[in-house]
């Protein structure tokens, strides 16, 4: 399977482990990623704040470049912000003809043009889960992540907003990453804030607001006794990982929850060397958590609902068919 690939600025440096693990794992899974030639920054949320027309044009240049690349119809982005910007620009150019015309008029100044709908923009996780398939991935697992309790953190922009009434996973309660981690053998803790916002660039605007958003996520993951948080976005990873020490200082808490990319987890389960996957590039070391792989549990950890005999008085939950 061949795809046009838009890595985004972060994967170049601040999220190099994501890039390294993506390349390693794509090879193993049979995804051929053809990097868009000479792509430019998607503008994150910054350009839209100042000049919308330029912002759409900035993104559209990438769409135009990818679209003329060698018959590739699908564009993959590993970063949720890039994914949203590319997808939104493509969608809006088609849905709002005036915007489409203006953007193409700007592109024309650079000798480019983009017909909305020419590309299908997808998040990397989407291609992994739906094109490769969970069964195929499970079949390739040589070192199941048994013993590891992972909290799957989706963040906002991969699942929201919906375009044409749909998005890749449920906008409130997504589960695709959970399923993938389960296929890799990990134990998934289903923590409720899985799709809540990490704050994005708020760390630069108002540390108080930003740190509180990060603290909530760490607290919730810790409450559910996750050994590790798995992410799909470099911004989320940066906020939860690189700022974890500052958050601890700010709130006088003591969280030590490593944050890894889902591609790193796949790589580990496929038996690849951690260094090759960029493990070690995180602020909060994942070594201790990863050492748990292979351990077995004797006692169910305290946060999980204890298995008890059916309580005569308890009322059935919605959707429950028979007796508990």
């Amino acid at each position, binding site marked *: 399977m061949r795809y046009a690939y838009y890595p985004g600025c972060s994967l170049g440096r601040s999220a190099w482990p994501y890039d390294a693990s993506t390349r390693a794992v794509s090879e193993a899974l049979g995804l051929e990623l053809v990097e868009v030639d000479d792509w430019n920054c998607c503008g994150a949320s910054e350009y839209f704040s100042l000049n919308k027309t330029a912002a759409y044009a900035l993104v559209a240049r990438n769409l135009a470049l990818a679209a003329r690349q060698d018959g590739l119809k699908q564009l993959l982005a590993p970063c949720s912000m890039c994914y949203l910007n590319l997808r939104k620009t493509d969608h809006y150019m088609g849905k709002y003809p005036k915007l489409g015309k203006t953007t193409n008029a700007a592109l024309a100044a650079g000798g480019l043009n983009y017909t909305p709908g020419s590309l299908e923009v997808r998040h990397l996780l989407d291609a992994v889960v739906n094109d490769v398939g969970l069964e195929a991935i499970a079949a390739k697992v040589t070192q199941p992540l048994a013993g590891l309790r992972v909290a799957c953190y989706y963040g906002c922009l991969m699942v929201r907003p919906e375009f044409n009434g749909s998005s890749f996973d449920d906008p409130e*309660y997504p589960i695709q990453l959970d399923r993938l981690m389960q296929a890799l053998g990990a134990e998934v803790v289903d*923590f409720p804030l899985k799709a809540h916002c990490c704050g994005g660039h708020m760390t630069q605007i108002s540390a108080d607001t930003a740190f509180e958003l990060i603290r909530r996520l760490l607290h919730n993951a810790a*409450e559910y006794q996750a050994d590790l948080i798995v992410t799909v976005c470099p911004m989320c990873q940066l906020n939860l990982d690189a700022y974890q020490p500052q958050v601890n200082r700010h709130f006088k808490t003591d969280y030590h929850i490593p944050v890894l990319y889902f591609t790193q987890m796949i790589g580990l389960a496929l038996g690849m060397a951690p260094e090759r996957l960029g493990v070690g590039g995180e602020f909060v070391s994942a070594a201790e958590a990863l050492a748990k792989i292979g351990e077995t549990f004797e006692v169910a950890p305290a946060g999980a609902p204890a298995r008890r005999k059916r309580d005569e008085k308890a*009322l059935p*939950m919605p*959707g429950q068919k028979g007796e508990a």
Partner: protein
Amino acid sequence: MSERVGVYVCHCGSNIAGVVDVEDVSRWAGENLDDVVVSRDYKFMCSSLGQELIEDDIKKEGLTRVVVAACSPHLHERTFRRACASAGLNPYLFQMASIREQVSWTTQDKAAATAKSKAMIAGAVERVKLHQALEPNEVPVNPNTLVVGGGIAGIQAALELADAGYQVHLVEREPSIGGHMAQFDKTFPTLDCAACILTPKMSDVGNHPNINLLSYSEVEEVSGYVGNFRARVRKKARYVNEADCTGCGICIDKCPKKVVDEVFEAGLGYRKAIYRPFPQAVPKFPVIDRESCIYFERGTCKACEKFCPTNAIDFEQQDTALDLAVGNIILATGYDLFDSRKIPQYGYGRLANVYTSLEFERLCNASGPTEGKIVLRDGVTQPKSVAIIHCVGSRDKRHNTHCSAICCMGALKFGHLVMEKTGAEVYSFYIDMRPLHKGYEEFYDRLLEEGMHFIRGRVAEVTDAARQPGEEGKLIVQAEDTLLGMQRRVPVDMVILMAALQPRADAKDVGLQFGISCSMAGWFTERHPKLDPVATMTDGVFIAGTCQGPKDIPDTVSQGAAAAARVQGMIAVGSVEVEPVVATIHEERCSGCRICNNLCPFNAIDFLQDKAVSYVNAALCKGCGTCVAACPAGAISGAHFSNEQIFAEISGLLYDVVRGNGAKALLPVEVPA
């Protein structure tokens, strides 16, 4: 002898006259159209004076045809036909040109509107000259009635008809009648116990000599037309012999298989594989749910059969089919509740102590799974704080755009019950408060006095992720308190979702079966939303209750009674006139290809096997013309829509191109009449 046509152009106040130059049009018609001997314009043709104009002219000027250019035939065709008839002219020698809905209401361009009006009148004049005098058919009305749905709407309708001395077949698909109302605990605003006011009516239905109660039954097929319907009803096998069963209930006691009761208990309680939905069920006979029964699954058990003192259990029982002949049908099929799992951020299905309104009714109800104790899902703990969320799935473009009419009142009712039974703090999260009917605003006052808290803000999410002390172990309801302009997090023990009322999942199929349509939202379509809410566009089929749209119990009962009254009116008259504007198949030209059979939207065409020709049932036919157009042999003619009449109308419409030759100018070949 040529015809004498009268043309009447209505001003309709300024509705038509404001755009169309009606004086010019009427003068033009008189001067230019062949055979028009009278041409007038008048302010309001539908008024008595307007009608008298027509009647007088028919008598004095010897008119043989009448054309009225005014509003839509839907509104006043009947009025003007009646006027003709009362002056001695066959009412079908009349034609209406709709120069309001089709002209003055569609444009501001006066010149274009005036020209189009002339064209339409010319068309009407040309075609009406070729109309045949028709006589309406009269069909007898069978005094029996079929009521589909045994909730409060169907019960009310059935009782009114039965009390008036007429036979009613009441079909209900659940094992007992009672509908949703039987699930409720109390009803607002009187706080009457629902069962206490409902069960007497249920009992009346069960005992009424004129009501044939067909419970655990469904209508499979309907055919016929107003006054003469045939319904095939499948009576599902209960596996209990009704003749022998005393309703003692020992079988239910002894049955070892328990399953979640998803219907009556709304998934909150259990029932056995052999069960009665609730203690006051009418009829009292239990039912074996084949899918849960151990005997049907594995061939063992049969405890019910062993212990039944009257040998009433019959595992070999089969479904039976009944054919009913009725004159009218009343659909009272009720509503479904919105599936709150579609709003995951409210936690329903994931967070144990989030309940829907129907589940909460069962919780409050003394014959419910907790014997009326309001407790958390552990079945034991009383809540100290409860949040009630309004508009769950209502007023929402993503789910249902309508307002469900009863949730605000339901929330007040729940608030009262919670405070009365547990003393807990109750918080209502609303967008608007809608206590609309008699006694409702006073009920709201009462709850304000009782100390219920009201927060104006549509809830953003319900979560168990605590953020600060005081929130651990609670459900936190997060919303903007819009009257304060700030986000609030209110920790509570229990959340009740006022879920939307929706059309039944199979409403479209049911509608199709009975020949009526549904609105875009899925509710059955009434004949007129303001002036005729219980009739449908299909004569003889009526609707009542929430299947027509969300409403409270008083309105439901009113509609049930209204539908029954309409049926009684038809039975009292004894016969009904059927429009003679129908299609006729000319046997001698029909080759029996049957193309028309499946095209008829009203299933009005039968095939006569012995003669190998198709035949139009004039009573069912609505004169739509589909078969006329489709017949490859030209063997079908439609009254008022013969080829000549249609070509004449076209040539009239094209008056400025075709002059003087009338219909003949456009007819390509001689078509036999």
